[in-house]
């Protein structure tokens, strides 16, 4: 309440609208998490939209959606749309995160503890 609407600005950047062909990541309930890992099945194909090609290039080894967003300099919702295209076209694979049910799995937590111990 301290700063209502302080740094909200009007409109959505046009560039993002163009990249996603006018689609908004908000419309489709996203099944992609910030830490879903993405792996490309091949290199980029000729004629691909530059953002799709960039994703194909950087996902030669697994990369999270958050990392793709960081390297492309694009918002998560835009990257979600781009990945949706590539997934639908069968160009990339996704590896969903380990979802802690209500409470996380003991073995999972133990694995994390072991990993942290080695840091």
């Amino acid at each position, binding site marked *: 309440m301290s700063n209502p609407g302080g740094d909200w600005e009007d409109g959505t950047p046009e560039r993002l609208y163009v990249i996603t062909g006018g689609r908004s990541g908000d419309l489709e309930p996203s099944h992609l998490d910030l830490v879903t*890992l993405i792996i490309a099945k091949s290199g980029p194909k000729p004629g691909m939209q530059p953002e799709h090609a960039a994703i194909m290039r950087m996902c030669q080894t697994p990369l*999270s959606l958050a990392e793709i967003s960081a390297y492309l300099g694009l918002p998560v*919702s835009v990257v979600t749309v781009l990945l949706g295209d590539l997934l639908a076209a069968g160009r990339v694979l996704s590896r969903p995160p380990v979802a802690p049910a209500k409470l996380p*799995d003991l073995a999972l937590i133990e694995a994390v503890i072991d990993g942290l111990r080695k840091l």
Partner: protein
Amino acid sequence: MDFESSERAIAPRREDALPATAAAAVKVVIVGGFGVGKTTLVGSVSEIRPLTTEETMTQAGVGVDDTAGVERKTSTTVAMDFGRISINEELVLYLFGTPGQERFWFLWRGLFEGALGAVVLVDTRRLEVSFDVIGRLEERGVPFVVAVNSFPDAPEHPLEELRSALDLPASVPLVFCDARRRDSSRDVLMTLMRYLHSLAAAPEAS
């Protein structure tokens, strides 16, 4: 907004590549007020230089557009730092440091969903920032621990005093840390994992 201008990396460096065996990831969220040390903590334990992801947040405007009569929408871009720790050949842990502006913490869709848990980083000079977030994590059932980042000019309080000031249940771990130190930040994550382990091992006791 902060203006820490580090060149934005446009592709992962070769040494930052995850092995092809990386099968799944988990995430932990670091929350806390402006300048409490979230980015420092993420950076001190991350195996990659912290990266920044962003999201466009929209909110319906209060007024009505004069000409078209449609509801006005406003949007803003919110940035979030994150880092990564490879736990083993298959499992990767991501750490997200929330933006300083509190009102965005719970607006970022999918940030807390699926998170293993959260670390609430507090600065004893501004404890009040933590009340609201602790309440909202409890509401959402996100397990968390509280870490007090010790700044040299901050008044020193014993942990138990801070616990009652934060109105924190006895069961929630509360520790001191120095977010600049890798071992100290690692220990905070360890505290969270041990707490999660105890919750998972004895779900009915809370």
